[in-house]
Structures are given as C-alpha cells and as structure tokens.
C-alpha cells in the first residue's frame, strides 16, 4: 500500500512513520500510517476535515503520542524519548501553528528572539539583529517588529510566526495551514517564501494545507489522508490522474479543476518566455 520509494537511503529520511495508529477512546483516528519524508523535500498532507491531519502533525512534534507504531524524526525515535533528547530535537525543528501561536505578551521581535534567548548564549544585540534579519526574510515590514501580535493582520501574523519558526535555523519546518485565512496576494507570497526557504537553506518542509494553489506550486509530494489511512503519496500531477475515489474527491470539484488549469497555464507561460532569458 505504501508508495514509499525504496531507493532512498536511510540517512536521507527526515521523517519515518511506521504503522502509526491513534485512538481516542473508541474513536479511531489513524490505523497503520506509513510515511517517509526525504531531506530537502516539500511534503504536504491533505485530507478532509477530521481526517486526522493535525493529529498526525502533533504526533510528529511531540505534542501527542500515537497509540501504536513508531515515529522517527531526524533519526530520533520519539517513543520513550528522554527530556534532553526532546530538547535537542526541538532546537532542530521549527513549527508554525495555524493561528501563529505567537506569545501575546511579547512584541513580534521578542517573539522571534525568544528561541535564541532560551537556547543560545548570544548577546542581546546579536539576538535582536538575528530577529530583525529573520523578520525581513519573511517579508514583514520593519515597522511591525515592535508591535504586539494582537495588532497584526492575519498575513503579518503568519509571517512573524514563520520568522520565529526559522529563528534557530532548523533543518525541518512544520507548517500548519500556512495560507489559511490569507488574501490571494499574501498566499502567493507564502508560496514563494516556502520555495525560497527550501532552495536557499535546504530545509525539509512538512505542511498541512487545503490550499490547492500552494499544493500545485510548491509541494513535491502529497499524502492524501482519508478514512484513517494514507490513500496515496505522490506528486500532484500523478494524484490528479488517480482512480482512487478518496483521492479523486480532492481533484473533482470545480475549484480544484480551476487551480489545476491555472497551474498548467502558468507553467506554460512561465516556461516559454523565461527560458531564453535564463539561458
């Protein structure tokens, strides 16, 4: 059932989930999930509401324990992980929550500086410099640095949250609905940002999203979650030709078709004129 490529070396696996099952009382969320995420890959998880995408993400970032199965992140087995290893792991990943998860009591710049303040011995001025640089990288206007999260718009909040997630220069980045609640222009900005992070810093990115544009533009591989199982893991193009009804569901709506057509159109127009220039 798994579409895991077998030719990938073990060291290139950033995330490895084996037979992960989750139950809450009588409610079965997942059964026997197997997933592998490779280094420097943009991996997306999609699925209908209640399909357990968020639960899966929470299990990857140590906020929840699966009922059965093993999860290995960056080569570390999460089961029975001790406190020191967990802390070491926390420094190697960044997480951006759906609502940002920024600390309301701190300014944006302090929020971004917090992981550095906690986990490094850098001086205050260095921390501030790094925080400003990270915020600039995510495209947040410098005026917003001294504002509190409650004063920010949704798009600015996501950018600030992303800046905090990459403050410690992680190897692995988790994004929960990075474009949800954003206007189309900001959402397009996030597309570019995600690609830029992967291309410049070689980050591995795991994201949960419903945004078909984001999926078409940036995702290398997409896992479709339905009925507590991984229905398929493949590129968007291959998934769109899938015969599996649970997968087809995502590609059959009018919105899905529109996004697909638009993507095809974009690729054609981009490739034609840009090739001579880049040559």
């Amino acid at each position, binding site marked *: 059932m798994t579409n895991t490529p077998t030719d990938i070396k073990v060291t290139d696996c950033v995330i490895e989930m084996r037979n992960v099952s989750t139950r809450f009382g009588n409610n079965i969320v997942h059964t026997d999930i197997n997933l592998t995420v490779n280094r420097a890959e943009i991996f997306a998880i999609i699925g209908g509401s209640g399909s357990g995408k968020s639960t899966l993400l*929470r299990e990857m*970032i*140590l*906020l929840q324990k699966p009922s059965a199965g093993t999860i290995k992140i960056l080569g570390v087995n999460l089961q029975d992980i001790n406190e020191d290893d*967990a*802390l070491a792991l*926390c*420094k190697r*990943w960044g*997480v951006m*929550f*759906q*609502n*940002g*998860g*920024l*600390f*309301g009591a701190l300014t944006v710049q302090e929020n971004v500086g*917090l*992981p550095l303040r*906690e*986990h490094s011995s850098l001086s205050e001025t260095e921390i501030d410099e790094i925080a400003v640089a990270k915020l600039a990288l995510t495209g947040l206007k410098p005026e917003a640095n001294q504002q509190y999260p409650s004063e920010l718009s949704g798009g600015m909040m996501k950018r600030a949250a992303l800046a*905090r997630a990459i403050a410690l220069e992680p190897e692995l980045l988790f994004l929960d609905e990075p474009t949800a609640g954003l206007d189309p222009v900001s959402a397009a900005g996030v597309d570019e940002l995600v690609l830029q992070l992967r291309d410049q810093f070689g980050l591995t990115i795991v994201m949960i999203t419903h945004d078909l544009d984001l999926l078409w533009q940036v995702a290398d591989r997409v896992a479709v979650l339905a009925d507590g199982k991984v229905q398929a893991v493949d590129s968007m193009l291959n998934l769109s030709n899938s015969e599996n009804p649970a997968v087809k569901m995502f590609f059959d709506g009018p919105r899905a078709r529109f996004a697909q057509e638009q993507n095809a159109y974009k690729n054609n127009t981009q490739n034609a004129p840009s090739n001579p220039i880049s040559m």
Partner: protein
Amino acid sequence: MTAISKPSKLAASLPTPNLFKRVGKSTVDQIKQLLEALSFIGETAHALVKSMMQPQRIRWRPILFNIRTAGFDAMPIVGLLSFLLGIVVAYQGAGQLRQYGANIFVADLVGLSMLREFAPLMTAIIIAGRSGSAYAAQIGTMAVTEEIDAMRTLGISPQELLVLPKVIALFIAMPLLTVFADALGVFGGMLMAQQQLDVGFVEFLDRFVKAVSPTAFLIGVGKAPIFALIIAMVGCFQGFRTRGGADSVGRQTTRSVVQSIFLVIVADALFSVAFSMLDL
C-alpha cells in the same frame, strides 16, 4: 390517535436524563480530573526540583512580576476587607461583652479570631478570586491560541515558565499579605473597642499581647503558604485543562475559583482538626 402518539414518541427519542448514567459519568469525569491533577502536581514538582538543581534556571523576573501583581497590588483590597472584618467582629462581640462587664476581652476576641482564622482565610479567598482566576484565564487563553503548544515545540517547558513563577510568587506573597491583614484587622477591632466599649488603644494592646500568643500568630501565617499552593496550583491546572474555544476559558476560570475556595476551606478545617489534636 397518531396526533397524540407523535409528541410522546418525540419525547422518548430525546436523551432522557437518567440519574444513574449522570452519576456514573460525573464520577468517571471526577476520577479522570483527579488523575490529571496528580500528574500535574508531579510535573510541577519535577520542574521545581530541576530548577532547584540549576538555580540559574529560576526565572526571577516573572516571579517578581507575580509578587507585585498578586501580592503588592492586592494590598488595598485585602487591607480594607480585613479592616472591616475586624470592625464587624469587635462590634458583634461588644454587645455580649458589655453585658458581663468583660469589655477588655474584646482584645482576646479580635486578636485570636483575626490572627488564627479570619486573616489567612480572608486573604486566601480574595487571592483565589483575584489571582487564581487570573492564572486560569491567562493559561487558558494561551492554550486556546496555541501558545502553550508553541512553547513546547520551542523546547520551553510551560511548567517552568508559567507555573513555577506563579507558585513561588504566591508562596512568598501570601504570608506577607496575611500579616498585613492581621494588622489591619486588629486595628479595625481596636477602633471599634474604643468607640463601643471605651477600651483605649493602650489598654487594648496591653491585653492583646497577653491574650494572643505567638503561636496563634504563627498558626495563622503558617497556613498562608499552604493556601497559596492550593490557589496557584488549582488556577494553573484549570488553565491547562482548557480545551476548544473562548467559552472554555470562562468555564475553567470559574471552576478554578470555586475549586480553590472550596479546597482552601477544606484545608482550613483540616488544620483546625490537626491543631486541636496537637492542643495548639
């Protein structure tokens, strides 16, 4: 006939509040909550021991901040209410004492009741309503806005950053507030004694030092840190139990106040039993 049977069918299909079912469900819920509370106490104790081993990890700034907000800023309200309570106790006692010509014993009445019982209990109840609720609301809001989750993924222990400073701060602030409440309560009683019973300040204080042993004072102040632990732990615990949305924050806040006042009074009763067994 169908018209009559329809509503009864509808009523039968509604979930009927079965007494046994409800009792059973709430019993299971309470046991679950108790287990959660135990693990919360354990986690906090673990964080405390870890902080003690590495004193540079103790977060002094939030501790001082909490001492100010929960302790210093509460002084006016705690002082005023104890002062009024002192007045009430002396006034109620005055009528009885006058009948027997035992006016001077108003110092015994006010001194013992304020120092042993009223001042610590009053302070605890005010702080439970004032700071315990604030703790629950703060942590609950952070849970709803994913700030607690974010903290964990950043490798910062919420126990260490949010719970310990509050517990330590209240542990320090509550006994101090209780002493303050003692002083204001006795002062209130003293004013009333002068007004109603013609017992001057000098006579009152003269009798006060004879009647009230240091033990009575220490018993009162000694309860305060225990009450502080109850209030801070209940407030934080209920905050962490917040699930879902904003309405849950309100529910948990209410629950924290009710529960901490309840536990404070239970603890006070247990103290009374223990002290009477020890003949204190």
